[in-house]
């Protein structure tokens, strides 16, 4: 009964796969992008094959996307490109257990002319279990680049949408020429978020609607069973929603529920207890109060890979009265408690993984270090990034450790991975190698001359929303720099101006950040670029959206200094 729909789904996937593979490099590659070899040897590196294992000197050979040998006396094939690993550390590639890197939300369908907000069609109300992350994923997105740069080689991507957004997929973060799909239809992505201005509009409505969809999927299955084995039975009404929910109610795939805090964890678990689906909760930020519940309920747990910012603590003043000090202490206590949660959760024996949704991958290491400092063991942190995530998404057969036969996903660093000055030098994903620039430490004293950045710059940036630009003014202020930047006002009215902060210059590198206020929310943007003369090229990182190219030229100074 469900076949017609299924078929179209499969066909769609097929077509998509075919088109995708059509762009794979041909034998003769006019673009010159095809790598010369698919075999690499990393020789004599310090290899940490699995979480908690001691580093051992070993050589790793990968071929056609698979680790073919790990050890000290391995033969290096003639075709291998050899990378001397003597000073390097190798770890299994990280896995993002719930990701939206490279995911673009499909446009909302147009509202029908007879649209009634109290009873909207499922698709408009955010109930789209038939959608697949495969249709929304783009490997060439800068978000994927950012994620890979942070050491992630595999991502369980979830579609973007409403209360039931659709089905997830597992992607290896390989090269642009491939679909990079490992497995589609892995989980159902759900949240407690309502649809704006229509039913269900709030968490209470969403929970009621979820029960409704779930129970009616069950009943539809019963009706289909009766209809297929009997005559004289009214044709059951089959719709996209119930068909796509079938695997969930049959326990074939889990529901990945987005939750932020302990109360939302309880809400998701109460639905699960009532209805009986397999549950994984992801995106947890505040969960100290439910560590026991997370343990006893046995649900999968995926933490948001982010620690809270410490701005509130840093801005605390010294000479305050007792009452204010008491308030400060509570904020500090809350902060400490928040960053210590991961350690407590690991100690309780919950094998959690991490999600980068709404987190900045470039801050991942900083957050991990904060968690480790607050009590999370390095091996538990590593397990969360690799083996736990692999098990949770059913990929432990092929991923999570550095072992012969596993997929060639590696993170290669200049030092022990969680140490302060360690940097990621290479990431191997799906057997392809991605190289990253290693920043040399800023020299102290009056070593290198730094570039002059003061002046008025015109910049342009390329974002998915199109090309935009504005003026950047930087002034020298003693040893520090300050300034402003203009940009198109997100509210659509002309240009807006923000002060820039954290201006720093290292060699010819300029970096600064600023905040854009959009719809009552402050979005932080950080820019870094290489200055040469009067031009700058670099990238602009917008929190949660990814990195985009930016270029700027300095206006000549027409005002005489005299």
């Amino acid at each position, binding site marked *: 009964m469900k076949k017609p729909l299924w078929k179209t789904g499969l066909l769609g996937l097929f077509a998509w796969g075919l088109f995708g593979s059509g762009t794979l490099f041909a034998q003769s590659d006019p673009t010159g992008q095809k790598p010369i070899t698919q075999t690499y040897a990393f020789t004599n590196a310090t290899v940490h094959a699995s979480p908690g294992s001691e580093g051992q000197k070993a050589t790793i050979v990968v071929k056609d996307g698979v680790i073919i040998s790990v050890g000290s006396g391995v033969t290096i094939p003639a075709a291998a490109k050899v990378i001397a690993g003597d000073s390097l550390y190798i770890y299994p590639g990280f896995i993002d257990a719930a990701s939206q890197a490279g995911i673009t939300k499909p446009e909302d369908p147009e509202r029908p002319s007879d649209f009634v907000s109290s009873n909207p069609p499922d698709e408009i109300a955010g109930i789209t279990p038939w959608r697949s992350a495969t249709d929304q994923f783009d490997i060439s997105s800068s978000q994927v680049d950012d994620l890979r740069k942070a050491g992630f080689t595999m991502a369980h991507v979830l579609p973007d949408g409403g209360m039931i957004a659709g089905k997830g997929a597992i992607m290896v973060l390989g090269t642009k020429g491939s679909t990079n799909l490992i497995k589609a239809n892995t989980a159902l992505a759900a949240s407690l978020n309502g649809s704006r201005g229509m039913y269900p509009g*709030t968490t209470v409505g969403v929970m009621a609607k979820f029960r409704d969809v779930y129970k009616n999927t069950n009943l539809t299955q019963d009706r289909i069973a009766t209809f297929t084995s009997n005559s004289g039975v009214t044709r059951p009404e089959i719709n996209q929603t119930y068909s796509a929910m079938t695997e969930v109610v049959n326990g074939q795939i889990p529901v990945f529920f987005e939750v932020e805090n302990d109360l939302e964890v309880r809400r998701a678990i109460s639905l699960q207890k009532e209805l009986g689906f397999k549950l994984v909760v992801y995106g947890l930020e505040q969960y100290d109060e439910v560590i026991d519940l997370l343990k006893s309920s046995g649900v999968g747990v995926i933490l948001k890979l982010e620690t809270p910012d410490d701005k509130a603590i840093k801005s605390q003043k010294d000479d305050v009265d007792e009452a204010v000090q008491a308030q400060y202490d509570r904020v500090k206590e809350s902060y400490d408690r928040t960053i210590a949660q991961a350690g407590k959760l690991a100690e309780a024996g919950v094998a959690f993984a991490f999600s980068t949704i709404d987190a900045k991958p470039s801050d991942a290491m900083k957050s991990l270090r904060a968690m480790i400092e607050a009590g999370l063991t390095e091996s538990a942190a590593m397990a969360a990034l690799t083996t736990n995530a692999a098990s949770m998404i059913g990929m432990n057969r092929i991923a999570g450790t550095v072992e012969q036969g596993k997929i060639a996903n590696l993170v290669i660093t200049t030092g022990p991975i969680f140490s302060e000055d360690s940097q990621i030098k290479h990431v191997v994903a799906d057997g392809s190698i991605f190289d990253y620039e290693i920043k040399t430490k800023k020299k102290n004293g009056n070593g290198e001359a730094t570039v002059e950045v003061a002046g008025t710059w015109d910049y342009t940036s390329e974002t998915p929303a199109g090309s935009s630009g504005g003026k950047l003014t930087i002034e020298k202020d003693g040893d520090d720099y300050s300034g402003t930047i203009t940009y198109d006002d997100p509210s659509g009215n002309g240009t807006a101006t923000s002060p820039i902060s954290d201006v720093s210059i290292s060699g010819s590198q300029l970096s600064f950040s600023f905040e854009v206020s959009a719809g009552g929310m402050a979005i932080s943007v950080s820019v870094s670029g290489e200055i040469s003369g009067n031009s700058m090229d670099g990238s602009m990182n917008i929190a949660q959206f990814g990195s985009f190219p930016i270029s700027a030229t300095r206006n000549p100074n027409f005002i005489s200094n005299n």
Partner: protein
Amino acid sequence: MKKINILLALCLSLCLSFSWAQTPKGSVLIKNGTVLTVTNGTYENTDVLIQDGVIKKIGKDLNAPSGVTTVDATGKYVMPGIIDAHSHVALDVVNEATAPIVAEVRMKDVVNPYEIGIYRALAGGVTISHAMHGSANVVGGQNATLKHRWGSSNPEDIIMQDAPRTIKFALGENPTRVHGRGNGIQPRSRMGVEAILRNGFNEALQYKKAWEDFNKAKSQKGSTAVAPEYNERLQTLVDILDGKIIIHCHSYRADEIYMLINVARDFGIDKLVFQHTNEGFKVAPEIAEYTMGASVFADWWAYKFEVYYSTAFNAAILHRNGAITSINSDSAELIRHLYHEAAKTQRYGNLSDDEALSMITINPARQLGIDDKVGSLEEGKHGDVAIFEGHPLSSYAIPQMTFVDGIKYFDINEDQDDQRQQVSPTETVEPILLTEHNHRCMQDTEHLFETASALFQMNQ
């Protein structure tokens, strides 16, 4: 068959006692206070012994069993914990305002035990509140009756699990504004509200019959009957028709109050309480005869057109006509001094002390269906108690201690500057909602009015 029934009953009682055993219970002996039982008169120099959360004994010269702490209430007043029959405290969401009937939504899903309003209510002697859905819909969601067990992180702990189900209804300007004027659908007028109700209940009857027919057919051998669609919205209306849920209906005008009485009578519904009910005094005998009474404000009105015809004598008139009458807060501010609100019935209506106190204790308990457990100081009832310095109906009354199930959750001498349970790690001063004193009945509906203006523009 009998065996099964006994087993079932056993299991049920076990399950019940199990869930009951989860919430904390305490023991305390309150010595030598003026005990205002509300239902059985006032006793001076009298002790109240609470053991394991239940009032064990009220009498003179009681001795504390070993391990039971004693509280000296000499010169103080001991009254039953105050019950607020209309509140939106401790709810993360108030309105699922998107459809004229949303009977399927459950406020128990969104109870937030961290809300500071619970503690503030305790500081006003309030031990139980009725956390209601808002008034944007003709039939709103199912409410939660809360016990103010402050300090728990688990919403289950503050939900009064043995209270009966209640549901929010709303008449008049709110639902017609949201749905009629806001979204261009029924109900646009008070007549539309009645039509929504009658259509809803008639659909519920059909739904009930469809399932009864199916279940009957299914039990036949070789049946190929297929189940009707599941619809919790209609099922909840069926439960109302079956007397399993008490309706609490937001209402102001006498005509619409009488309308709902008639609808309820036509459909055989008698579990009905009116909320606000500012014109209740005009139909007091009818309310007394056909419903579980009215829960009103002491003197709050004129905040919109339908609330102009009001009087501070409303509660007293309703009460004197025999309607069960309570006084509620519907506000995070009023909930802190409901004893003042109750006292106003003495200034406007000359009610006796017991009558005035019953407005915030036993009467709301009756309207919530929990008067067998709480609402007065009687042996066998829950140990929910408030201790006052000065008579609670005096302008000089100051709440001293508040107990729920024999556990002290508020003590004026132990009150800290900062009683928050949760503190943000990223904000030194957290934003404060300055609209707290306003009605929260229409919270979460603002966006609907944006939609409305968008619709108008589209149609032009």
